[in-house]
């Protein structure tokens, strides 16, 4: 039982490290802010979450110590990181960072952005 727990913990930490590595590759390889944000807001989230989960399982199996702070950390990262990705890409769009030149569509450009109060 302890061996299986250790195995799962090690596997989770390895997967998390691999996902973080892939995130770094994605940040280097992808062409513009928005596509890079895809890599940063998804793979990094799951990577950190699985490292934390592996740590939680390891300390529970090996030392019988259940650390609820790690669980809260997983929850906070899960909630906040998509919001962070959204805010960064929104700030980038509003300050005029262009899309990659091979982008095919931009519906946001023609939309009504922020009308005056009397027009509402």
């Amino acid at each position, binding site marked *: 039982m302890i061996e299986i727990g250790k195995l799962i913990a090690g596997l989770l930490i390895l997967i998390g490290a691999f*996902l973080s590595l*892939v995130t770094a*590759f*994605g940040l280097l*390889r*992808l*062409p*513009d802010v*928005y*596509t890079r*944000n*895809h*890599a940063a*807001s*998804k*793979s990094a*989230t*799951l990577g950190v979450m699985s490292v934390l989960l592996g740590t939680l399982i390891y300390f529970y199996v090996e030392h019988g110590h259940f650390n609820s702070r790690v669980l809260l950390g997983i929850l906070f990262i*899960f*909630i906040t990181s*998509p*919001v962070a*990705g*959204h805010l960064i*890409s*929104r700030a980038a*769009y509003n300050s005029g960072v262009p*899309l*990659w030149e*091979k*982008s*095919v*569509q*931009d*519906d*946001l450009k023609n*939309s*009504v*952005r*922020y*009308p005056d109060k009397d027009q*509402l």
Partner: protein
Amino acid sequence: MAFQILLNFFLALVWMFLKTTYDTKTFLVGYLLGLIIIYGMRRFFGSRFYLYRVWAVIVLILIFIKELLLSNLSVLSVILKPKLDIKPGIFALPTELKQDWEITILANLITLTPGTLVIDVSYDNKILYIHAMDIQDVEDSIQSIKNTFEKAIMEVSR
């Protein structure tokens, strides 16, 4: 919903006072009995029996986790593919959800979906602007995923 939970809590407390034993076991028994009573009296409440809504929340969380895993696989395959043949773009998605928290949850779900990232919400909360990693083959399937998300969120809020 909050009223029904509070009522159930209160019934469990009344059960503890009736038994004059004050421990967790008695509380749980009282809570279960209160659950049965509330289920029997459900036509007097304005909203649905609250366990349905609890179940809908659990379903939503499971969808969240599943989408996170799938989106990671798709991002992984894009990044590690030797040739970069993606066609990114921004498309508009009209939404029927009204309240702010519903739109927040929908935007978070979409951000964690394979290949999509919410960039802006229109000022009247009716349209979400979404950046897609690969626009031509995803758009139809994404539309269907959106329908399931929106439905799951409406299931919670109605």
